[in-house]
């Protein structure tokens, strides 16, 4: 595509066979994982909002593969793929969707709030635009501590209208922070098309007024995304200044599971589906002789089996015990020994540090509902929103 500083994919050609296969494998895992997540949502195994990135796998894998292990990645509420691409255990990602104790976040965050410190996946965030300042903060810490990590901050086209966008671009440029901002332009902010929410639709230019140069990649092409992101990361590392990369892609599914998609035509979706990043890249590899059709199918089966195992694991994982309700709000220690008298649900001052010791029956709110047994009100509402 135009205005690209990096070497175009078609010239760059394909990566080494093993690398190429691993990329395809990663995209397949994400695709199959999300398809199953959708099914589990329909079965009410998964609650809340579920935002799938199906169609955006090349953007996710191409950009994360350009990172080194020590680099930080931060994303949004649409980040199953990002945490999987970073290497998180699919079992624990699925368990988080199921809201179970073995989930990445012990079932506290759910689909919108994934986090895996070991993999330096610094989280999915539910507040649109809220993750940009955090990313600049990671980069500030790296710079301050003299570490050479770079932060990759992924957010959506709609998020580029949030106040934090301008504020963060200016600060990152002013302080020359090592961060690559990647705006995943999937053409819509929820039901609002790009041209209806952003005066400038050429998103790679949106940071220029704040001194952040732009690049663009074809977010449906994993190789191009990899190349452009790699170049952006190199510039950031060497020039010590932020870069904004626009990844042009498309969301094949609805914004969330409850989306009638009245804001776009079936034709438009079909047009983009012709460019399905998994099909396109898979075909490329087969044509290039890097991959045999049978091998390709075997890889896909492997992905499906991995996801089956993840579902089984998640289903077997227990719900958090009500005793865990108050865990991890505060770091307890000499300074804060407990948040006693910071909760008056009970007629006597509630003492956090004691709660874990209580057995469920004593828990004020536990009386009504056993673990996982869903009470009516929530269900009514749930049904109503679905």
């Amino acid at each position, binding site marked *: 595509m135009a205005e690209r500083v990096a070497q175009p994919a078609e010239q760059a050609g394909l990566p080494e066979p093993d690398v190429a296969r691993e990329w395809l494998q990663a995209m397949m895992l994400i695709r199959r994982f999300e398809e199953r997540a959708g099914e589990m949502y329909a079965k009410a195994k998964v609650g809340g909002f579920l935002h799938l990135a199906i169609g955006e796998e090349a953007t996710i894998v191409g950009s994360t593969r350009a990172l080194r292990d020590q680099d930080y990645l931060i994303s949004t509420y649409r980040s199953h793929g990002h945490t999987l691409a970073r290497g998180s255990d699919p079992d624990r990602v699925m368990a988080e969707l199921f809201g179970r104790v073995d989930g990445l976040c012990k079932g506290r965050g759910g689909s919108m709030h994934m986090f895996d410190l070991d993999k330096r996946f610094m989280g999915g965030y539910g507040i649109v635009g809220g993750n940009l300042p955090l990313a600049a903060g990671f980069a500030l810490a790296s710079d301050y501590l003299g570490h050479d990590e770079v932060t990759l901050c992924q957010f959506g086209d709609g998020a580029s209208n949030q106040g934090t966008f301008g504020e963060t671009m200016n600060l990152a440029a002013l302080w020359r922070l090592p961060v690559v901002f990647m705006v995943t332009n999937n053409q819509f902010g929820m039901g609002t098309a790009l041209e209806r*929410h952003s005066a400038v639709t050429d998103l790679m230019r949106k940071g220029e007024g704040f001194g952040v140069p732009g690049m663009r990649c074809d977010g449906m092409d994993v190789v191009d995304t990899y190349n452009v992101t790699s170049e952006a990361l190199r510039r950031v590392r060497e020039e010590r200044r932020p870069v904004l990369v626009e990844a042009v892609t498309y969301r094949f599914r609805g914004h969330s599971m409850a989306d009638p998609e009245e804001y776009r035509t079936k034709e438009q979706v079909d047009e983009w589906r012709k460019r399905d990043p998994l099909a396109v890249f898979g075909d490329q590899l087969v044509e290039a002789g890097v991959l045999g059709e049978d091998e390709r199918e075997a890889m896909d089966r492997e992905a499906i089996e991995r996801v089956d195992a993840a579902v089984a694991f998640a289903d077997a994982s227990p719900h*958090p015990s009500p005793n865990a309700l108050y865990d991890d709000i505060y770091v307890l220690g000499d300074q804060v020994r407990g948040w006693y008298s910071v909760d008056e649900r009970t007629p006597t001052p509630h003492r956090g540090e004691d709660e874990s010791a209580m057995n469920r029956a004593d828990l004020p*709110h536990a009386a009504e509902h056993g673990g996982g047994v869903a009470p009516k009100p929530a269900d009514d509402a749930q049904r109503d*929103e679905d």
Partner: protein
Amino acid sequence: MRYREALNAALREEMTRDETVMLMGEDIGVFNGAFKVTAGLLDEFGDKRVRDTPISENTIVGMGVGAAMTGLRPVVELMTINFSLLAMDQIVNHAATIRYMFGGQVKVPMVVRMPQGAGHQLGPTHSHSWEALYLHVPGLLVATPTTAADAKGLLKSAIRDDNPVVFIEHEYLYGQRGEVPDDDDHTVRFGVAAIRREGSDVTVVGISRMALTAARAAKTLSEEHGIEAEVIDPRTLRPLDLDTILESVRKTNRCVIVEEGWPHGGVGANLAALVQEQAFDDLDAPIQRVTGADVPMPYSKPLEQIAFPHEPQVIDAVLATFGERTRP
């Protein structure tokens, strides 16, 4: 009619009644609203009066303030109250302050609508109940409708009022049905509480969805414990109809306040302080508060369910005012 439909009707009627009423918000038009409250209004009134906005909460609200100062009656929808923190400066330092600060030269007739509430497993960034943050602020009016009829009547009053109104809806209530007078001029005045159930033994004040939880608990209390609870829904927290609550407490001598939000500095704290100030000698027992847990709302269903009040906690609190408890 569902609560959501009642709100939709209120918007339609007021837009028909007054040309200067217009709507702004994220995905309220083409998408018909995240919770479908504005469904059909874009088609009916066009994109001049029903405006999809970019994701820019602070500026959307601020534009509403500016437009309200210069002749319009904007109704701004924030997708949920959780995102309203981004607009808090415009709501508090501008909308609520401008008329007073400028010596009464202008008014700010606008409404900021937003839903709140837990129960849908939306997790720690999408599930909070923050009416307490707004009732703290002079210059604002704050409504928390519980029934479909109040949703409609209060929203119509809010739109017609010349003051900035923070109008707090509830995601669970959107799907609930209720009788709604289909009179185009059915309005509900701010500052008048509703007595949902008469009773002589204990006063139970319930905010928003919790007024329903309180009513259910009252039924059980009557059937299983022979306790007749008077259930009061304040309907608006600013102005607050304290007199109705005081009258009830002077009759029952006991008071329990039920809210979904956090305990510290919540609505219950405010009401408990007011009631003990005004009806100290009438109280036979400490005022009990039943609130959400003092935690960010977790995603896990069982954790979420124990993190906001249900009937048992209300019954428990009521019994406590009689010196009894169901649990050791």
